[in-house]
């Protein structure tokens, strides 16, 4: 019997997020797809845009930790319970950074699309 079943994690996440579950999955898929489209359109990574996106992404990391603390009614000191807590905090932060960087990169790419001549000028 006792075997690992990844479906349990999916089910638990579904219960956790309730009506937000499917929109969130859709958002992640659309985001990933949009990133792919942008990368293909521009023929690679636009490094200046990436740096800007990463700066926004750093903020996203802190936002993710803050969100988790808010949802769980925790205070900063609680995050220092033991090494596993530091790891959890870092994992949440990294997830926030990656997610926000991707969103920001796509966002910036869409904004500068109209004057792509201008943006191309900065491409290395």
């Amino acid at each position, binding site marked *: *019997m*006792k*075997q*690992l*079943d990844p*479906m*349990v*994690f999916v*089910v*638990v*996440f*579904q*219960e*956790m997020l309730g009506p937000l579950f499917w929109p969130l999955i859709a958002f992640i898929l659309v985001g990933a797809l949009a990133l792919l489209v942008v990368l293909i359109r521009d023929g690679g990574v636009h490094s200046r845009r990436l740096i800007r996106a990463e700066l926004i992404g750093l903020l996203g990391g802190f936002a993710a930790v803050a969100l*988790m603390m808010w*949802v*769980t*009614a*925790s*205070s900063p*000191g*609680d*995050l*220092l*319970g*033991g090494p*596993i*807590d530091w790891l*959890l*905090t870092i994992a949440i932060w990294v997830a926030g950074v990656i997610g926000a960087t991707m969103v920001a990169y796509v966002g910036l790419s869409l904004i500068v699309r109209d004057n792509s001549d201008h943006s191309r000028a900065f491409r290395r």
Partner: protein
Amino acid sequence: MASKSINSLSRRSLLSLGAAATAGILSRPASAQARLATKARIVIVGAGAAGLASASRLVQRLDGAAITLIDARKAHFYQPGFTLVAAGLKPKDYAISQTRDYIPAGATLIEDSVAAFEPEQNRVKTTGGQTIPYDFLIVATGLQLDYGAISGMETGLIGKNGIGSVYAGPEAAEATWREMARFTDTGGVGLFHRPDTEMKCAGAPLKYAFITDDRLRRAGTRGKTELIYAAQNKALFSVPIVSEKVRMLFQDRNVRMVHDHVMTAIDPGRKIATFRTPAGSQEIRYDFVNVIPPMRAPKAVRESALAWQTGAFAADGWMEVDMKTLRHKRFPNVFGVGDVAGVPKGKTAASVKWQVPVAVDHLVASLSGGTSSEAYNGYTSCPLITRIGRAMLVEFDYENNLTPSFPGIIAPLEELWISWVMKEIALKPTYLAMLRGQA
């Protein structure tokens, strides 16, 4: 070469992580099997955590069975949430949903309660006058809170004059929070205790003492309060290693501990609780008290042939089931799961998650003429909140062994944020998934 060994190392640790997760709260206990065709009549009495989880699993395993749940209560309570409600962290609605929402397709609910069990005749009688026969019976009635056993106490007093009681229901939990919040303004004596009967979630009385301590510190009034924990025997918790850890924490938080104290009476006017102790009757004055009543099997079970006839579980009428299979010792077509089972540990929702698949597997094996080797090891879990934002993920079995779900990753006796995060956001979803037979 080096990268390969790192690779296999991380793969191995991943695998052990997977193995760890199989042991405990996040894993799925039984794999899906082919459905067995049967016309058996299966009656489940009680549609709480254990009853609903049993129904969901039976529906998954059986094809054509007549599965009937009997419970008069329309609301479903997520009871582990009561602690968070009484801590002022969640509204009472957090713990309330509707039983109907969890009845699996293929099972029927009779909104009535069982007044008498007649296992010799393979039938139950309801308060509404129905007689319902069965081929197999699962008793999942939970337990009864016996407030009347504390002289002077009744549920109507909860939320007044410094009396709280986290156990009585979502409203009571919210009323307890109001009284506790008031107490954090005024200060005085905070009194915590537990009954000397078996009880559900034996960690809950401790948690609430820790939470109150934390609330007082946050309010800046801890200095003008005294907190007392009156234990019913010489320990603070039935698992010795956990008991000792709690003793250290209480000492650290300046909670005074008294032992061998069993509450017998309460005087709401004078704010005095009376305890039975080896040295005779002792009174303790309080400004806030979290009253936790004795707990027994529900009357219908207690007064039936299903109850233990001798031994430690007889007095309170717990069901006489085998501690490994949860099958009744004298009526083999009857199972007892959840709080009502007369077994040494296991009165938590986390235990239900491990008991139900075992009982269901034995029931299905009987239907198919086979046997089952599934066994329940006493798994009990109780995230012991030690302050808002920290908890200890305490998990153990019949033998008082700690059985951590994430060995080497989440230390069971450390006050960790990750354990708190799990209690706050993962336990309710896991519980709901369990009701649906999905976890």
